[in-house]
């Protein structure tokens, strides 16, 4: 790794870390794990910077984050997920359904499996079309659509789960993943 590559890498991280960290937060739901995820991927990018830096490093890092997150998810005991069947009827006491729904969704997203959360982040946070999501995840657009559908089904299930309503977002650690 030469000095020029190091400078390029540092400039890249400095300019793009706000956006990359937002994605990492959305993928993991927790600051510690988001830092862990992004740092792991950036370390990998740094080791390969002479190849990565000449192309589209942000695309590399984003893609690597999604794959890393799904890979971590495959480790045992990394998360728990409770599925239920019914579409929730979320309604707040004061009628502000939107706010209540958003809070409930936030809780449900924390409990969603990372592979499902990843596809929702790409679709609803990054606003990417299915073909680009497919490119990042290395699958077909039809697979993306089916994954989104399954993720949304799971989200509905979690919303209807009473445990979700009483579940507290973790401050740190991985106990709720």
């Amino acid at each position, binding site marked *: 790794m030469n*000095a020029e590559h190091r400078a390029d890498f540092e400039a890249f991280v400095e300019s793009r*870390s706000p956006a*990359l960290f937002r994605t990492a937060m959305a993928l993991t739901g927790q600051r510690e794990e988001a830092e862990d995820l992004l740092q792991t991927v*950036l370390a990998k990018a740094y080791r390969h910077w002479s190849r990565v830096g*000449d192309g*589209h490093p942000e695309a590399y890092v984003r893609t690597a984050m999604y794959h890393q997150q799904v890979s971590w998810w495959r480790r045992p005991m990394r998360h728990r997920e409770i599925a239920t069947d019914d579409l929730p009827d979320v309604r707040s006491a004061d009628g502000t359904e939107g706010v209540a729904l958003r*809070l409930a*969704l936030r809780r449900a997203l924390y409990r969603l499996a990372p592979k499902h959360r990843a596809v929702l982040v790409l679709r*609803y946070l990054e606003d990417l079309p299915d073909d680009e999501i497919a490119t990042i995840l290395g699958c077909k657009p039809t697979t993306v659509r089916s994954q989104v559908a399954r993720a949304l089904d799971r989200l509905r299930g979690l919303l209807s789960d009473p445990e979700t309503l009483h579940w507290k977002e973790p401050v740190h650690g991985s106990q709720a993943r």
Partner: protein
Amino acid sequence: MDHKLDDALRGALRDIADVPPPVGLATAARRMAARQRTARMTLAGVAAAAVALVTVPTAMTMIGDGHMPGGATPGPFVVTAYSGASRGTDAGPADDRSLLLDPKTGRYEEVPYTEVVPSPDGRQVLVRQGDNSPQHPLRAGVMDRATGQVRWIDTYAGALGRDGEWSPDGRRILLTERPKQGPWGFVIVDASTLETTFVEVPLAPETNTLGLGFVWTPDGEHVALTLGRNVGGEKVSDIVTGIRFFDLSGKPVRVIEATAALSASTDFSPDGTRIALSEQYPSQGVQIVAAATGHVVQRVPLPAAGRVLGWYDDDHLMVGVFGDRGHEATLQIVGLDGSVMRTVRLLDKGIDAQRVYLGSSDGLSPAAARHSF
């Protein structure tokens, strides 16, 4: 999903993601990379020491039995160099080790350079070494392939840290000079005298080159540079907007609109009329554009993790397919319709390389010609 849930989901994700990044990410990542490197060095220590006892204490050593790519049928091309080579057990990629084909023995020899770029005729090699630390200063030079002797270039240290390209006639080397402060431009190195000429290029300071450097055009009389811009703040990647051509005095001579990147002179077709431009993601394929106008004449799908290494002929591309460590790398000869005509194994499994350089198989000994395709 109805619109209400749809909007709520977007809002919830934004809520979760709306957190400022930690400070010092780059430093932390570099340290993590260093720790991983140390761990791998520790694991590989015993084996490395054992190997060190049997390697030849010269600038060039052999890798295995020299078996690398190719097949039974001789072809016009051969892999001349694996630049920045590493094994899966190594500390990291490109740690001052590359592989060069010996045209006589057909063996790929290990040389102690981070980067090697063979000249078109293979007689000289642009080499790079060091990491600009006090112990290992960055330097680049021209190696005589026959003797292994290197003549070091002692100017433009910044440009020396970037990839270099040989001119089509093999007499000059093109380097990109892009200092943090000061004028941008390119450096032309006379390979015989090592005389360097810096050519300032009138690019606005905010010009976005997507990190890409200058490349030679096929006539050797111009250079070209990919230009881009940011279209969505931090949220989206920069996009390519065009390719600008300059004469060797740095004067812009023309520009073509483009949405994909020109990364090397080998992207030009053999007849010089077309360019294979790389899309943002390898799996999006390449665009074949008219060199004169930028008009997209064809789109070629690529395998995932594929990268165009050059044109096999006017109707086929050579595509390197690089998996991550531990996966076998291959070279595919791909028709412009995306059909794979031939697949050639590149590196031995467990060896990785930052770049692969291809050259003509003319003049190779029979032992080396077995690697051709």
